[in-house]
């Protein structure tokens, strides 16, 4: 149990997916300029990563490995992710039009978010058990959501700052992310 707790902390803070693993940077820079957008994207990513993490783990260990076709994992995983996104989109549309209104736009973008495929591959690479996979997927994606929401607050404030013309937008955002990454390094001492 304590192992799982450590894993949760590590994946949430210390090995944060954006600030130390560099996965999902495109969407991080793309949607973090508005608070509402960041929240929507963060939640959508949380659902997709957690579900696809579990499904790809099951497929890898129940189908690919017994069949001796583990080399197919990249192709199979990306198809699973794409299918998951489609199914989730349809399900949310049917059961919660309200939620669909806020998440709908972000779902199609998630297929090519490298955080999703990245977590699925990391689960396999680290030889996780199923329970570890669940914890790792959920907390990694929560780490993504937390960082993207915090960052959207910072960027909204940065709009008011007198930044030189050439550094407006992405460059200053990257520099702010650098400071945030340094701060997150401080969490290493936590464990």
């Amino acid at each position, binding site marked *: 149990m304590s192992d799982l707790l450590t894993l949760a902390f590590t994946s949430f803070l210390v090995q944060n997916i954006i600030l130390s693993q560099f996965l999902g940077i495109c969407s991080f820079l793309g949607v973090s300029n508005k608070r509402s957008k960041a929240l929507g994207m963060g939640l959508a990513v949380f659902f997709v990563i957690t579900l696809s993490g579990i499904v790809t783990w099951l497929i890898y260990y129940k189908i690919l490995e017994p069949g001796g076709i583990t080399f197919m*994992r*990249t*192709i199979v995983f990306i198809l699973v992710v794409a299918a998951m996104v489609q199914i989730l989109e349809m399900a949310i549309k049917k059961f919660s039009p309200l939620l669909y209104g806020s998440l709908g736009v972000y779902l199609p973008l998630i297929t090519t978010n*490298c955080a*999703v*495929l990245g977590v699925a591959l990391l689960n396999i690479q680290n030889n996780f058990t199923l329970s570890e996979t669940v914890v790792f997927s959920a907390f990694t994606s929560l780490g993504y959501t937390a960082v993207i929401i915090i960052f959207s607050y910072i960027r909204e404030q940065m709009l008011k700052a007198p930044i030189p013309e050439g550094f407006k937008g992405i*460059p*200053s*955002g990257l520099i702010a992310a*650098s400071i945030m990454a340094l701060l997150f390094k401080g969490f290493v001492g936590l464990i």
Partner: protein
Amino acid sequence: MAKKKKRLTPKQNVIKGLIKENPTFVLILGMCPTLGVTTSLENGLGMGLSVLFVLILTNTIISLIRNIVPSEIRIPVYIVVIALIVTMLEWLLQAYIPSLYASLGIFLPLIVVNCIILGRAEAYASDNTIFDSLFDAIGMGLGFTLGLSTLSFVRELLGTGSVQLLGFTLFEANVAASFLVQPAGAFLTLGLIIGIINTIKADKAKKKKAIMDIKIAAALKKKAEKAAALKAKEELANV
């Protein structure tokens, strides 16, 4: 086939990808590997060339099948094509350059979801000829390689004090700011490089505008003078 834009020659096409639409510094695409693997020049170059390899094959194949694939399912088809090529590349690297395979790690299979590849497939190869798509891929791939090697060169030089390539030491400095090879340093270096490029570009545009303004002012003055002269002539004729 109707073309909106003028067709570029192969050379222009390559230069476009390398400088004008450089994927790393101008289009800001494919950020994950850009930040993730650029701790050393060797890794940066390896990643850049891997993407170049994948991009050339996918752009050519997608351009080849662009008229066969129904447009409703084109994105899944593109993704499968890309995933196949990336899997091939994984085997090749695992067999022939295992050290690079190990150091690129998870970023190698993640080329599948690299925005540059799907982006070029969708934006360029899906409605251009094979020949054009091939050169577009070469330009974009080289541009990405250039971006990655610049970033990794700066980070390795300042972060470790020396730059290694294929076992040779290219540069050596006595000071090292190990901060730059850490994740935070990646964000900082890339932010600074893009910022500097944008500043230079803005300056150039300003100068160009200033020159244009002078030219326009001169032209307007000339026009006014001409009109005045014409008016004077007319008045002279009336008198």
